[in-house]
Structures are given as structure tokens and as C-alpha cells.
């Protein structure tokens, strides 16, 4: 391949190898063989030299032997007959007084991977298990695993399995670990090596003797062990505590994995273990090796799913270095978004702002998306940054900003004013289809507030013939229809032109069908059209849940310390709503009829505490509320600025919704936080816990009751 005239080289080397003068001179012989191996590893086919190399195998020079074996193992499968000749030399070497030669022969005998040779190999392997030298035993133990995989059908002698089990007590730690590995492979069908109490305790006691690779292997195998009592469990855990904070990331990760599987029934212990590994994981995040940094970051993301606040104080460790590669920067930003809180938000946004103008377009877009995510909780500051970025008039930045704004508005409708104002003039810089789709969606949904919307759309409609992107065309149709509903006078003419073009000239079926659908819909009357097209402006199911709720550890424990977390992120970022947000939305289900018997019975002060909060309990008679979909309840609450923290799935009892809101009075020194729990268990009261501010509480309750009333009267 890389060589011109590979055959010429082969011929020349063959001549040299069979030259008796070369054979007699050890150094020249070795150098010729070196040339063969070099050509082989560069990809030249050297299989033609097999018989010459077999002869070269019989030598006292260990270096030459090793080289020849590298060759033979690569090409044995192509020359099974000739390989038989090697076996004799190898078997002779197995008797050699030098343990290094013995282990070398044994290893390569099993590496030839020829089923026809199995009968010759078994005897030396069995002898190898009882060899004096540890290095021979190491090889022999793994040799049995190789043999087993070569002939999966033939059963390995039970005596050998027993011998392997007894070698778990071998004084050499590597032999012990290799036994574990071999038994795992040989007994795969039975679920691997038996991990019972004596074996577990034996392995744990000898853990310290192993090097890091051996420790990782032992810790991994032990994951299958189930302690018989709680005392035993805690004995094991305290024994492993030092490994949990090991400076070697592989040991730390393997120990945590073991902890999580041992403590699957004890979530509190698992969480404490996660706290313990914070230090070592952070250290791995600052490791000199980029790849190690990346791995640690990915695993920190897993941990944050269960303890969102785990790294809160260390957010600066996740600031991007300017020379770091894009994939690390993007991960760090994903982590930073999770760590945002009231104290650090200003610092974080400052830092992220710097990344938005990164040379790497992907990094810049990731930074903008990250700011958008933070915008869900701190919308004002983020919108300020985002609108500032539009001023740069660069296509990739503008596109990312518009998409981010669309996603943000979908979740936080209160941002719409700023966004509408910022949209003016963006269309000139937008180039890619994703960005233009986002702009069109925003223009359609908020058309009545963007004064220039019809003109912008007109430009798009005039250019529709040369438009290549299917998505943009579909979005354009919908946006024009929506705009028509709120500004008919300005839009009617261009809508006509667009529909005409799409129905008469467009070749794509999807676009044409959609245009036809809209055309027929318009025939049904404006009310029907409105019903179909004026969907939601926001996604009520998302609410203002800041970050994710803490997941139980068991959700991700299985993928910890595997390649899984390293691959996930790339998929995750892609799926973050591309295309219109409502396409990913699910339709609210039709609700059961609600009775309008909803009355507020009494307000009762249950407990007015010494502390700075009051408890209130109130009973609202409204039995049908739980049956109305949580999404519409949440949407209704948001209209009056009550935010939903969490709710139980519908149709479960007791059904709960947690709410919060806060007063923002200009004259008050600090605002009052109101936390509420809406509880439904047949007939149950509703509770609210507030900081001492009676007026605010009463206001909250009255608003809440009004919402509930309205909601049920709407449904009636």
C-alpha cells in the first residue's frame, strides 16, 4: 500500500532471509527480520514469507524470537498448515529453563488462534498453571480463556475451572486478577465467576497488593456481590473508603460504581459517596490530559443529575481555557448552565458572553444556547446579552440568537416584548435555514407586535421560488397564515400569492399539501381557521422548572464508568429543539367535564410561628381540578404569575401540585415568597406556607381561587 513495488520488497527480503550468510550472522538476521516487521506494520502484505519466518523462529536470540512471533501471530490464520511447524519449536520453548522464554512461548502458542492446534496447546497450558514462575502462570491462566473462546463449543474441563478457582489464592496478584478475568470469560454462560462471601472477602483483603489495573478489575467483578447483612455492607464500604478518594481516576470511578451497586437500596449512602468523589473528580477535570478532563466532565454531568448543587461552589473550575478544544468547552458550558444560582449568575454570564464570539462557530452557538438556558430563570440579563449580540450582524451568531430566543419565548412568554423588539432587521443577516425558520415562527406567533412583520414576510414570499429549504417553506406558510389572522389587511394579498405559488407551481408534496390544507381551511371560515392555527405561544408543560429535578441515582448508575456518558452529549445538543417548538409539543388531551361547584369555604390560620413564616391551610371545594390536565392548570397559573414547581402525574392519588410566587412591591423592603401545595385526596385541604405577610397571602389565595374558578368555568 504505501510502498510502490511491495512485491519487489518481499522478494528481496525472502532472498535475504534464506541466505545462509545472513542466517549465521545474528545481527544481520535480526535486522532483516526487523525490516519484515516494519513493512508489515506499514500495511504491506508479507504473508508470503511465512515459511522463512517459521525457520527464523528456532533461535536462541530472545529479541529475534519476539519479532518472529509478532509476525507469526499476524499471519497464522492464513497459513494453518505451516503453523503446525511452529508448534514444535514452541513446545520445546515451553520446557526452557528461562521463565521469560517459557511465558513467551506459551503466550504466542495461544495467540496463534488456530482451532486445529488446540490439542497441542492444552498440555503445555496445564503445565503452565503449575509453573514456578509467576509470569508463566499469568500467561497460562489467560491462555485458557483464549482457548475457550477459540472453541466455544467444547467444554473446558471442570478440573481446569477448579484449578483456576484455587489459583485465586495465588501469591502473585496479577495471577489472581487474571484468574478472575479468565473465569469470567469461561463461565460467561453461567453468569461469570461465582462471587460468594469467602471469595469477596479474599479479594477485598488483597486489593491493596494489586496495581491500579488489577484493582479496577476486582472492583468491577465485585459489583455482582450482594452483602448478606447491613453490617457486612458497611464493613465493605469502610474498607473501600480510601479507594473512593484515590488520586487515580480509574480506581475512583470503579469504586464509586461498586458503591452505587452495593448501596442500591440505600440512597442516602449513595449520595454521601457522590459527595466524597467530588474532590477527585474535580482534580481529574484539571488533569493534564484533555481526554481525561473530558471523561471527568461527562461523569460530573451524570452526578449533577442526582445532586444538582454538588459543584455549585466550584463553578469557576468549569470556566473554559482559551486553548481548550471545542468538545471540552461545550461540555463545560453544559455544566455551567446547571450550576447557575443567584450569587454567581453575573459572573457566569460575563464568562459565557466572552465565548459567544469564539472563532469556532459551534462553540459560539453552544455559548448562546447556554445563555438562553440560563435565560429561563434570569431572563432580563440574558436577553440583554442576546440582543447585544444581534448588533454584531454575523450570520452564525444571529442565527443562534434567533433560535435561542424562539426557544426562550416558548418557555417564558414574558420575554416576548423584548424579543419582538429585537427581531427588527435580523432577516438581513440570517443565512441558514434553521435561523430563518426560527425567525418565521416568531413572526407568525407574535406578528401583531412586530410592526415590520408583513414586510419581512413579503421579502420571503417574493423569494420563495429560489428557496431551497423545505422547512423554511412550510414555516413560511404557517407564519403567513397566522399573520393573516391578526393583520388581514396587510397580509391578504401576499397570502394569496403564496398559496397560489405553493399549490400551482411547488413540486414538493409536503408543501403543496399544506398549502391546500390551509386553502380549504380558509373556505371553512375565519373562526375555524383561528381554532386550528392559533395554537399556544408557550409550552405550558415546561414551566419555570429551573434545571432538572434531582433524579434518583439508580437512573444513571448503570451507565457510570462506561463509554455511554461520553457519547450522550453530542446527541443531546442536537435534539435541543431544532424546528418549531410546537412540533415537539404534545396536544392537551380533552378533559373530562368539570362541574362548576367550586367554592372557597374558609381561610384558617393554622400556625403562626415564632419563625419568619406562617402556615395557612385552606379548603377549596373543587373536586374536578385534578382531572383537568396539569398543562392547562399550569398555563392558567402562569398568567397570574404563579409558577408551578412540580406536580404528580395525572390520575394518581393523592394528587399534588407545588406552587410558588413572590410579591414584588416597590415599597416593601424585601419581597415575600409564597410556597403552596395543592393537594387532592378526595376531599383535602390546600396548604400554603409563606413568609410573614398576611396581606400577600390573602392576595395569593384570592388569586389562586379565582384561577381555579375560571378554569373550571371554562371547562364547563
Amino acid at each position, binding site marked *: 500500500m504505501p510502498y510502490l513495488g511491495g512485491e519487489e520488497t518481499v522478494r528481496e527480503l525472502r532472498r535475504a532471509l534464506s541466505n545462509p550468510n545472513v542466517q549465521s550472522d545474528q545481527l544481520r538476521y535480526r535486522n532483516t527480520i*526487523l525490516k519484515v*516487521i*516494519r513493512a508489515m*506494520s506499514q500495511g504491506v502484505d508479507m504473508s508470503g514469507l511465512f515459511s522463512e519466518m517459521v525457520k527464523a523462529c528456532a533461535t536462541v536470540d530472545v*529479541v529475534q524470537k*519476539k*519479532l518472529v512471533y*509478532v509476525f507469526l501471530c*499476524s499471519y497464522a490464520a492464513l497459513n494453518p498448515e505451516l503453523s503446525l511447524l511452529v508448534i514444535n519449536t514452541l513446545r520445546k520453548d515451553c520446557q526452557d529453563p528461562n521463565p*521469560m522464554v517459557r511465558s513467551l512461548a506459551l*503466550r504466542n502458542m495461544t495467540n496463534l488462534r488456530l482451532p486445529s492446534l488446540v490439542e497441542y496447546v492444552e498440555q503445555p497450558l496445564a503445565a503452565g498453571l503449575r509453573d514456578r514462575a509467576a*509470569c508463566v502462570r*499469568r*500467561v497460562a491462566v489467560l491462555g485458557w*480463556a*483464549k482457548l475457550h473462546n477459540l472453541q466455544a463449543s467444547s467444554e473446558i474441563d471442570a478440573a481446569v475451572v477448579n484449578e483456576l478457582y484455587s489459583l485465586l489464592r495465588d501469591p502473585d496478584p*496479577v495471577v489472581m486478577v*487474571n484468574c478472575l478475568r479468565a473465569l469470567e470469560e469461561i463461565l460467561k454462560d453461567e453468569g461469570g465467576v461465582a462471587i460468594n462471601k469467602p471469595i469477596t472477602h479474599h479479594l477485598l483483603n488483597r486489593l491493596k497488593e494489586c*496495581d*491500579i*489495573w488489577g484493582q479496577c478489575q476486582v472492583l*468491577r467483578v465485585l459489583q455482582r456481590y450482594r452483602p448478606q447483612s447491613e453490617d457486612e455492607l458497611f464493613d465493605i464500604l469502610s474498607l473501600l473508603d480510601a479507594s473512593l478518594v484515590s*488520586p487515580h*481516576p*480509574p480506581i*475512583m*470511578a*470503579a469504586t464509586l460504581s461498586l458503591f452505587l451497586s452495593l448501596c442500591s437500596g440505600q440512597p442516602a449512602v449513595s449520595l454521601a459517596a457522590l459527595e466524597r468523589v467530588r*474532590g477527585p473528580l474535580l*482534580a481529574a477535570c*484539571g488533569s493534564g*490530559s484533555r*481526554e*481525561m478532563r*473530558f471523561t471527568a466532565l461527562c461523569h460530573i454531568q451524570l452526578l449533577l443529575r442526582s445532586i444538582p448543587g454538588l459543584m455549585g461552589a466550584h463553578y*469557576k*473550575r468549569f*470556566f473554559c*481555557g*482559551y*486553548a481548550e478544544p*471545542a*468538545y471540552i468547552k461545550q461540555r463545560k458550558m453544559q455544566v455551567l448552565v446547571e450550576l447557575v444560582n443567584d450569587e454567581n449568575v453575573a*459572573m457566569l454570564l*460575563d464568562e459565557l458572553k*466572552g465565548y459567544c*464570539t*469564539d*472563532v*469556532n462557530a459551534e462553540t459560539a452557538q453552544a455559548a448562546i444556547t447556554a445563555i438562553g438556558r440560563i435565560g429561563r430563570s434570569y431572563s432580563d440579563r440574558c436577553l440583554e446579552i442576546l440582543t*447585544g449580540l444581534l*448588533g*454584531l*450582524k454575523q450570520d452564525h451568531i444571529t442565527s443562534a440568537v434567533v433560535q435561542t430566543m424562539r426557544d426562550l419565548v416558548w418557555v417564558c412568554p414574558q420575554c416576548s416584548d423584548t424579543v419582538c423588539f429585537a427581531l427588527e432587521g435580523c432577516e438581513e443577516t440570517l443565512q441558514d435555514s434553521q435561523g430563518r425558520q426560527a425567525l418565521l415562527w416568531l413572526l407568525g406567533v407574535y406578528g401583531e407586535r412586530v410592526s415590520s412583520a408583513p414586510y419581512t414576510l413579503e421579502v420571503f414570499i417574493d423569494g420563495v421560488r429560489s428557496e431551497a429549504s423545505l422547512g423554511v417553506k412550510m414555516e413560511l406558510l404557517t407564519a403567513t397564515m397566522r399573520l393573516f389572522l391578526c393583520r388581514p389587511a396587510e397580509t391578504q394579498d401576499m397570502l394569496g400569492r403564496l398559496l397560489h405559488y405553493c399549490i400551482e407551481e411547488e413540486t414538493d408534496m409536503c408543501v403543496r399539501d399544506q398549502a391546500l390544507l390551509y386553502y380549504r381551511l380558509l373556505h371553512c371560515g375565519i373562526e375555524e381557521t383561528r381554532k386550528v392555527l392559533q395554537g399556544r405561544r408557550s409550552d405550558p408543560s415546561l414551566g419555570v422548572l429551573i434545571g432538572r429535578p434531582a433524579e434518583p441515582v439508580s437512573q444513571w448508575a448503570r451507565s457510570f*464508568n*462506561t*463509554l455511554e456518558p*461520553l*457519547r450522550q452529549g*453530542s446527541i443531546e445538543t442536537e435534539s435541543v429543539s431544532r424546528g418549531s417548538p410546537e412540533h415537539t409539543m404534545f396536544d392537551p388531551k380533552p378533559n373530562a367535564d368539570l362541574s362548576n361547584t367550586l367554592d372557597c369555604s374558609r381561610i384558617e390560620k393554622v400556625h403562626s410561628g415564632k419563625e419568619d413564616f406562617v402556615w395557612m391551610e385552606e379548603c377549596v371545594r373543587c373536586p374536578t381540578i385534578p382531572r383537568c390536565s396539569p398543562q392547562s392548570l399550569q398555563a392558567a397559573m402562569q398568567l397570574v404569575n404563579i409558577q408551578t414547581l412540580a406536580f404528580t402525574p395525572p390520575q394518581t392519588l393523592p394528587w399534588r401540585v407545588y406552587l410558588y410566587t413572590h410579591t414584588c412591591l416597590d415599597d416593601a423592603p424585601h419581597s415575600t415568597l409564597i410556597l403552596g401545595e395543592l393537594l387532592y385526596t378526595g376531599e383535602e385541604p390546600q396548604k400554603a406556607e409563606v413568609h410573614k405577610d398576611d396581606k400577600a397571602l390573602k392576595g395569593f389565595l384570592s388569586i389562586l381561587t379565582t384561577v381555579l374558578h375560571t378554569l373550571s368555568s371554562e371547562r364547563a
Partner: protein
Amino acid sequence: MISQIFILSSKGDHLIYKDFRGESGGDAVGVFYEKVTALTGDQPPVVMSHKGLHFVHVRQGGLYWVATTTADSSPFTIIEFLNRLSALVKDYCGSLSEKSVQMNFALIYELLDEAVDYGYIQTTSSDVLKNFIQTEAVSSRPFSLFDLSNVGLFGAETQQSKVAPSSAATRPIQSSREQGGKSEIFVDVIERMSVVIGSNGMLMKADVEGEIRVKCYLPNCSGYGAAVRVDEVSFHQMVRLDEFDSHRILRLCPSQGEQMVMQYQLSDDLPSAPPFRLFPTIERDSGGRLLMYLKLRCDLPPKSAAINVAATIPVPKGSLSLSQELSSPDQSAELKPQSRAVVWKIPRFTGGMQLSALFKLEVPGLSSASLLEVGPVGLSFELPKLTATGLQIRFLRLSPVQPGPSQRWVRYVTHSDSYTIRI
């Protein structure tokens, strides 16, 4: 469990290929390189998959070190192993480059054969391996005139021979045994700074990650001490810490080759001021050009100096040409259109000095918003003979006393991991 290991040059040449389990097809190398070249961006993702084959790779010495494995194997273990493998190759071959790997391929095959069997890692300890490795390393160091400069005139001892040449530690460990090479020990204190300075000159973040590395060409044993405040420390398992708490003495028996003896971290609270300050003025002139007036001050003690300082200043997109006024002739500046930045290089920067530069950039369609694009300035530099944490090695004693002459070298260096100054 590792199925295959291969080493590729950055151009995709196969340097080393070893299949441990014979399970996956031999075309893995080709598939991997296709995936790498198909991607844009500065570095492909660490983990890539193709039809149930998972590639994990690291970049070291400009080479791809790749392992193929199953989905459930531990990424920490594999990445640590690949790093360790490259360190071993570096120990045995002296340096890490495409050339040294090519020249020593037989040695590397031998190493791989001993380190991994059937995809299971057996050992990576150089103490164990040295008993098995038979091949001698071929040193790839080219003849250099600098070597001659160390030879004194008429054999006289010159000042220079008190300083070890920088290449002294890049020789294979085994030559000390065979060629009767000098018995030497190198103790390197290497620190990496990552600093963020806000636009108002406030220090926003300062982290130092340091490590003490010992590179040992001695057949036997040694011990040494240090005293400083650090936030988090971890030690190599062979370090005995009996006297560390009281006297700050580390005792260790290093094996041949390079080891990380101690790793430490210091966050936020540095004992000295950050080494560089920047005072930028950025404006548009009447002719629509972008003017950047930068003053860079080095706050190191006057006796020390930073070398290879490079400041990267991001500039607006579409910047066409650069005219520059620099305060001394050895500096240089260049506009790099691909990375959209001006790179200002200062070969040597003595402590206490202040350098200034005036850049005029021709940017068509420069608007006031474009000034936003003049982003945070990144500095890269090297501070020889200096540690940011102030960590020092007071003494390095070998015990028992070595027969024959043995040389001890202690070297300090601080690198910039990421030194960012916001504008």
C-alpha cells in the same frame, strides 16, 4: 477490555497495530481514520463508534493513540492506560514523535506484548517491564551544534556545564544501563496556571495545578523535601509520608523512568500577583480603522523573565490588514485570518518591564458593535525557574550515598494553561 491498539500519525500512517483478541475486523484503522478526517473542527470526539466497535483515542506527541473496546468498559481506565502507554514509550524511546515511534517499533511491540495480554492490562510499571524488555532503543536525537557548545575550549570547565542541556532528560532510560551512561536524577516541578482577569483588572479566577515529576536514571533510591501551602495534594503510591507532616520531607524509591510523585492544586488565593497585566485601549479612528493600543506589564520579580510569550487578541471578522508599532524589534505581530486573531509574540519578557503595541486594523464595515468582537485576550507563556505557588525543593538527598558520580537536577517551570484577560 481492549480489543486492538494502534498508533497513527497525524497524517494517518499506520505506525503500530496490534490486535489482542482477533474479534473485530482488521479494517478498524481505516474506519477510524475515515471518521477522523470526515470531521471538521480541531479534534474529533474522544469516543467514536462504528457498528459496535468503539474507538477511544488520545492525542500525545502529535500521534493518535487508539484503543478499540466494548461499550461497557471504563473510559477512565482506557484513557489512563493510553496515557500511561505513551509515557512508557516516551521513557523507553527518549522522546515522543512520529520518528521515534517509527524507529523503535520493535520495542513498542515488545512493550505492548508485555503490558497487555488478551486485551487485559497486565502491568505498566517500568520496574516490572524492564526485566522483560530486551530490545534497545534507537535514539532519534539528531546531531546538533548545541551539543558542541557544552564542550569547553581545550577541555576547560566552562560556566555552561553547570546547566544541564534541555535535552538531557529526553534520553531512553535503558541506555543508562547498557552504555554506562551518567547516573542522573531529574526532579521537575511543573505548574500550570489558569487565570481569568476581568475587564476592570480584578482577578476573577486563579488556579494552579502543579506536579512534581521525578525522572530517574539511577538504578536505586532517593528522598527529598519541600514546604509550601497547597489546597489539595495527592501522592504517588510509592511515596512514604512519615516525615511529610512534620518536616515536609517526601521519601520515595522511584523506579526508573518518569513518575508523578506529587500532584497539588491551589485555588483563588495565589501567594504572588498574577504575572501579567494588560491595559488596553480600543477605539475607532476617523478613517474607520480599528485602533488597539495595548500595554502589557510583567509583574514578575526583576530577576526572572517569561519566555515565549504570545498574546492572542481576537479581532472582528473580516479584518483585512494590520499595521503595527511595537516597542522593540525582537517582538512580532501577525494577523491570522483563520483564527480571526492578532498574535503578538514576545520571545523574552523580563520582570518589571512594560511593553506596548499599537495595532491598526483595516476592517471593512466596522461598526460600534464590532468592538464587542475584540474578545478576551489569551496569553500563553512559560516561566522558567519559577513556580506560581512558591513551591520549592529545598534539598534532594540520595540515600544511601551512590557510589560514583551521580548528578541531581532540579528544574522549575510554570506554564500558562489558560491565561485570559477580558477587555
